[in-house]
């Protein structure tokens, strides 16, 4: 089987694995990018959210073959020149508890702010209700999203 090539966090990679392998495990096990988390394996929790061509994708559902030639962004690549404003907002609001869901929450939020630079609470609920947090950090996530929007000055 030919290798499948794509870009992760700006870096070209080439992977020798079955093309129906979930992208999640390619990222975690073949590329060592463990910031993308395994929570449910069937797009119920959002912990594995990455971006493919700037759109959010649950890496447990995306298959390796689907990302051939495409740009994948993970939490590790988000703040390549220091923290992304969303990550900064997360720190300022002391959002994480156990922290396991937060990579996904942050990637979901970056996608949200791209479309809605000044999101309402309803917008936030419409996107982030698909991300589970077992510790119950939702109140703070909501505050942090608004804070990040402010930091980013409403520019997508």
């Amino acid at each position, binding site marked *: 089987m030919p290798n499948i090539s794509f870009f992760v966090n700006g870096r070209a990679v080439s992977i020798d694995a079955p093309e129906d392998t979930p992208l999640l495990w390619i990222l975690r096990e073949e590329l*060592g990018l463990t910031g993308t988390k395994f*929570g*449910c394996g069937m797009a*119920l929790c959002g912990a594995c959210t990455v971006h493919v061509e700037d759109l959010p994708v649950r890496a447990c559902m995306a298959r390796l073959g689907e990302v051939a030639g495409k740009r994948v962004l993970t939490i590790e690549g988000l703040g390549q020149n220091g923290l992304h404003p969303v990550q900064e907002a*997360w720190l300022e609001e002391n*959002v994480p508890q156990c*922290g*396991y869901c937060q990579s996904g929450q942050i990637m979901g939020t970056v996608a949200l702010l791209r479309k809605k630079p000044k999101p309402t609470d309803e917008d936030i609920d419409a996107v982030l209700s698909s991300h589970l947090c077992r510790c119950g950090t*939702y109140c*703070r996530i909501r505050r942090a999203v608004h804070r990040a929007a402010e930091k980013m000055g409403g520019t997508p």
Partner: protein
Amino acid sequence: MSARGPEATRRDFLKVVGLAGGTFALGLELPGCSPKMPMAAGGDFAPNAWIRITQTNRFLFALDRVEMGQGTTTSHATLVAEELDVDPSRIEVVAAPPDRAYDNPELGFQATGGSTSLKSSFMPLRRAGATTREMLRRAASVAFGAPLAECVAADGEVRHVPSGRKKTYGEVAQLASTLPIPENVALKDPATFRFVGKRVNRLDARAKVDGSAVYGIDVKVPHALVAIVIRSPTIGGKLVSFDPGSAKTRPGVVDVVRVPSGVAIVAESYYRARAAEKDVTCTWDAGATMSTEVLRKAYAERLERSADVVASHGSIGSGMAKARHVLEARYEAPYLAHATLEPQNTTVHVRENDCDIWAPTQAPALTVEAARRILGFSRANIHVHTTCIGGGFGRRLAQDFVVEAVHVAVAIRALGRPVKVVWSREDDTTNDPYRPMSLHSVKGGVGEDGKISAWSQRVVTQSIVGQVGREWAPVLLPNGAPGIMKLAIGHTAGALFGTNATTDPSSHEGVSDMTYEAAFGAFRVEYAPVESGVPVGFWRSVGHSENAFIVESFIDELAHAAGRDPLEFRLAHLAKGSRARAVLELAAEKIGWKTAPAKGIFRGIGLTHAFSTFCAEIAEVAVDGHAVSVKRVVAAVDCGAVVNPDIVTAQIEGGICFGLGAALKQAITIEHGRVKETNFHQFPLLRMNEMPKVEVFIVPSKEDPTGVGEPGVPPIAPAVANAIFAGTGVRLRRVPLLPALAEALAARSGGAKERR
């Protein structure tokens, strides 16, 4: 509180943390929860098991209460930083390895649970910090050749005040390490605290927002294999035989082996192992056959039989006789899964005479013990590395996932490679030690005076301690069983210890010691333990998690029966000046109890005293036809002196979310020995759109600090159930509430349909 100070455990950090060498020798890093520890260097100053100051002026702190989100990294480092007088952000926190120096005096061994972390560490860590700072000051006196009285240690520096000379702590570390450890060092006056009692940003947050934090599932050990385990579809089922089929011919699959819990597929990666799962055929024996519906009937029968009285005062008979209103009800709560977002996992490397274990464990001491019993190694040769933990909630006190991983490692020992066993979500949901199911009958009377003249309750449930005691006993016994575990284990696990055991306080906590009972004319609580064969465990807030629902709902029933306001009725049973009364009054004031809520919004109260912390929650619930949604919760909490108010607030917010998901939606059901729920579509966690606005108010207090990891959970279920009653007139006596409400409303509208 333990009287044990650093002087009592003169075990130096160097030696203890040096044991973690297995990790460091491999050059592994566990950022976030356990940064790479510099190799011990001569001249470091390590006067106790927790603190090490290097000559390069680094401040290392060994955290012996695991971080699972509840904030110990930050709160405990803050205690040390406060007394050391350095900014908490300068403290580098590493996970303490297993060692008796790190026993939790509240539990009797090295474990994190029962909301004990602050309570158990508050004074020991302050003493450790203060003693260290005093030694640095004495070292300064030597270094400056000046009288001690002229030297201070503050803000990370020692200074000779008259001359203005100064050095960093690191510069006098070596000197300090040669000095005797002083006793009875004065602690800071709380009035002068710079960090304790104030918001300090979480020290573990950075690694959790940039993806660098290493949870158990993320551990990368060179050459490690990954295994999945196929387990019995029924509870307790045993493997009869298996056929690996073509699994071993798949690329990346290394072996398919039998282990006590089932069949392990060992591969180069998780996805390779998982892909081979369908190739393997397993034959199981029948296993268990219980079903939730059958168990409910058995519980109902058990309710009618004898039970042990676990609390009593006054005469129930005459109390009921005196009552103007008498009510009787039955309440039920289901099994619940912990559903930590990080599925269970453990990485093990077994060698000839020793091993390394990387695990998201809440109890490193139990992890060592679990491995020791399988491997027969001495405890010193079992190197446990606690990783970041993707949610604990009591799940990771149980060591089943460690035991299984050790067995897998043993089965493939000949390969000489470490192995990480990773559970799927389905594995996790169907193989949990569940929060026990329970059934309560409760009867109460209210007299002419509007006070409860009698309260009688019988609790039918499974003993958790009775089950886990077997696992814990070998770890507890060498040390005796101090603290609450002595209480807990002493009875139900009595057979184990050869004592007279009749009860498990964790089964009826919050009932037998309910906040109001002293004000009742008569009071009796009986406990009827049952055995179901369903594995059970400690689930965030343990017995309180269901018992608060029953007690706080039934007191609401009595209030309504007596025509009293639910707040006034409760206050009438709480002593003036009591902490319980104060939190309830504070919550009521903040929500504006005296002012009616907006149209369509209804309020309900929940109040609990759990894990020594008092917490009142008042929920505002919108009722629109058959739809209910929780809009706002006001919580008031008294947890004694506060170390970090923002973490207290976060824990109460999180507790409300955790408790609300269970209250509204969650249940584990068993059909013919199989757990029916497998993933989040069937065991739904609360989602953001269901999360109410939460306001948390903290009662200022100078009492000793108590925990907040669990106490936010119990009051929310009754608060919401009581609000639903206020809005619909439907009294829900069964959780989860949403299906119970739908059922009740459907029954109620049965007549209405005919009219249509």
